[in-house]
């Protein structure tokens, strides 16, 4: 991850603009097909496979990777790790945009998106885990929006509104942790209903805990990864404090991620033992399970630990990529690969290219929004008028 020179950055952005432009055009075209031809026109979903990558990737992965917001704000404001303060705003922004694009993606996936408020205003299905998921998405998106709003308010010079938001920091942080705990874990709990469809190696009564713990790993790794990219592409926007704290954040978050990954590895082994599923390890699915557990949990935990020990920022950065891939793999396994494992291959699901197109489109929209905000608002630097406590 070398440092870019200014002309290099310029050419990157024009390249970025071209790619983003093409993706947006294709995305809008598929959007048109989706809302004029129905889900059947653009997806490979079937009566056996009602959920595809718009749930597996856009919702499950999207929410997990947006966990940086609550992890960082909890670390700084509740656990008092003030030396990571400069990581809060970028993390909150990533979280907010992450949740926003999750909600955007849901509008593609559900059959009648204009009815999304129905569970709240018409009839409440409170016995459904999905009700909890929906309520938490709605509430947490609001919380993240308010948390994030201090940046645009500073940018627009609305001092009084901004001061009110800052005063709410503690309340919002605690709310954010509560909602994230419930929400991240309930995404795992969604699959508790289907022990007959999800492979026993992935099905576990501990699914909610697994999802919650992995979201912390995802959050920590995303902060590292995102700060690496920000440094590379938006270095000119960073102030001195960001520059100074940057390496400290990478080391600290890498250390935390190593510990949490180790803990996660241990509870996975406990889960395997308590369900007594060892004999499945000899099967093809077992090998795949070991690939996930050893290659994407144990290995990143180990590499993070080494990276922190020898103070190799590069190793930590690359490990964060490995850990993030591990989260994506885990969500894909639970939702798509190990789900419906009992069905013959002719009845299994593989995404249509247009489903992938929409997912890429939505991530691109998120990146464009991120770039728009970071280049304008005080995210990577403190606003000169608000040095006090942002």
């Amino acid at each position, binding site marked *: 991850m070398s440092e870019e020179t200014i002309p290099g950055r310029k050419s990157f952005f024009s390249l970025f603009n071209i790619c983003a432009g093409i993706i947006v055009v294709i995305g809008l075209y598929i959007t048109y097909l989706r809302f004029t031809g129905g889900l059947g026109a653009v997806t490979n979903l079937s*009566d056996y496979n*009602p959920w595809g990558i718009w749930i597996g990737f856009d919702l499950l992965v999207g929410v997990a990777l947006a966990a940086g917001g609550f992890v960082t704000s909890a670390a700084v404001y509740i656990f008092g790790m003030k030396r990571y303060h400069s990581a809060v705003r970028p993390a909150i922004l990533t979280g907010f945009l992450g949740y926003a694009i999750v909600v955007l993606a849901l509008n593609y996936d559900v*059959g009648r998106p204009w009815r999304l408020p129905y569970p709240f205003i018409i009839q409440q299905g409170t016995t459904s885990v*999905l009700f909890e998921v929906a309520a938490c998405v709605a509430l947490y998106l609001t919380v993240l929006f308010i948390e994030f709003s201090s940046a645009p308010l500073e940018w627009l010079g609305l001092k009084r509104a901004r001061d009110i938001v800052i005063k709410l920091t503690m309340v919002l942080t605690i709310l954010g942790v509560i909602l994230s705990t419930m929400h991240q874990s309930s995404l795992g709990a*969604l699959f508790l209903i289907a022990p007959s469809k999800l492979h026993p190696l992935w099905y576990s009564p501990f699914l*909610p805990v697994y999802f919650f713990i992995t979201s912390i790993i995802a959050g920590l790794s995303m902060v590292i990864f995102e700060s690496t990219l920000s440094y590379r592409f938006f270095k000119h926007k960073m102030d001195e404090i960001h520059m100074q704290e940057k390496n400290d954040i990478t080391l600290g978050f890498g250390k935390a991620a190593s510990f949490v990954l180790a803990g996660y590895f241990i509870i996975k082994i406990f889960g395997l033992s308590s369900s007594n599923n060892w004999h499945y390890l000899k099967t093809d699915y077992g090998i795949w399970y070991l690939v996930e557990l050893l290659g994407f949990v144990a290995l990143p935990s180990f590499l993070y630990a080494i990276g922190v020990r020898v103070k190799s920022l590069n190793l930590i950065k690359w490990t964060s990529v490995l850990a993030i891939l591990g989260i994506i793999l885990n969500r894909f396994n639970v939702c798509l690969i190990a789900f419906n494992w009992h069905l013959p291959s002719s009845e299994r699901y593989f995404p249509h290219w247009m489903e992938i197109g929409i997912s890429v489109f939505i991530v691109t929209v998120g990146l464009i929004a991120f770039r728009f905000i970071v280049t304008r608002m005080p995210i990577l630097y403190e606003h000169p008028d608000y040095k006090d406590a942002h």
Partner: protein
Amino acid sequence: MSISRRKFLGWVGAAGLSTALGKSAAAATHKHFSGYPGSFAVLHDTTFCVGCRNCEAACNKVNDLPQPDRPFTDLSVLEKKRRTTTKVFTVVNKRNDLQRAESPVFFKNQCNHCLEPACASVCFVRAFTKTKTGAVIYDSSVCVGCRYCMVACPFEIPTYEYDQVLTPRIRKCTMCYPRVSKGQLPGCVEACPMEALTFGKRQDLINFAKQRIQKYPDRYVDHVYGEQEMGGTSWLYLSGVPFKEIGMREDLGVTPAPELTAGALAVVPMIVGLWPVFLTGIYAMTKRSDKIAEREKEQAIDKAVKAARKEDAELKT
């Protein structure tokens, strides 16, 4: 990066709570729901089924479903395994490759109308209702189209109108709720010429089925499918071959679907109640340790300044 004792305690508290999350509150309910008293059911004795497809035709008619490409009299469709679709609420399938049975085995498939339906428990707008007649019915006027019911259904019954743009619905057998409410038989039961389908009170049918097994032990597998599966269903089955050979899963267990998620949902109010207490506590501890550190720092500076002054004074004298 040293970790103070207080901070460590804070973390232990947080970790303890998050592990508590996983403990499913299995005792969320002691009640076992064994169906509405006097609710109806259908007993499908597969040993009587000859695969005539009259039930399919009747189902198509009473539900106003579109005409299929091939007529219901065409029995060649039985050669390929079929499933229910948005246009077909029931299908008869055939197995003629079973060694134990001398003749082909036919078996009908449709919604089993669980006593405690997975679809109803996971629907976040309560679009599904288990009625007192025994039927599980669906209300498309509130459905958002999330398709979680399809994920949840262990029998893979609900189907979705993926080709509909503005009004996609879940489609499945209604156990002829409108007809039964009027005192009529379900379409398929009425049409069956072989008495492979019997409509009646669920408890009566269970007794009846067990009597049959006792009377003809060679004819049947000793099991009434649906009596216990997923907590019990309103469709019951008798078979002469193991149920898994006629496409019915024997590994579903007897736990009603809602119990699978009850534990996780029961933890929600605990998180809402306890997290703020723990988090505020941790915050207070962090703050206090900051304050102590500050005071110690001040004292140390004070001491150093005093010592320096003293030294200064001594030097002067």
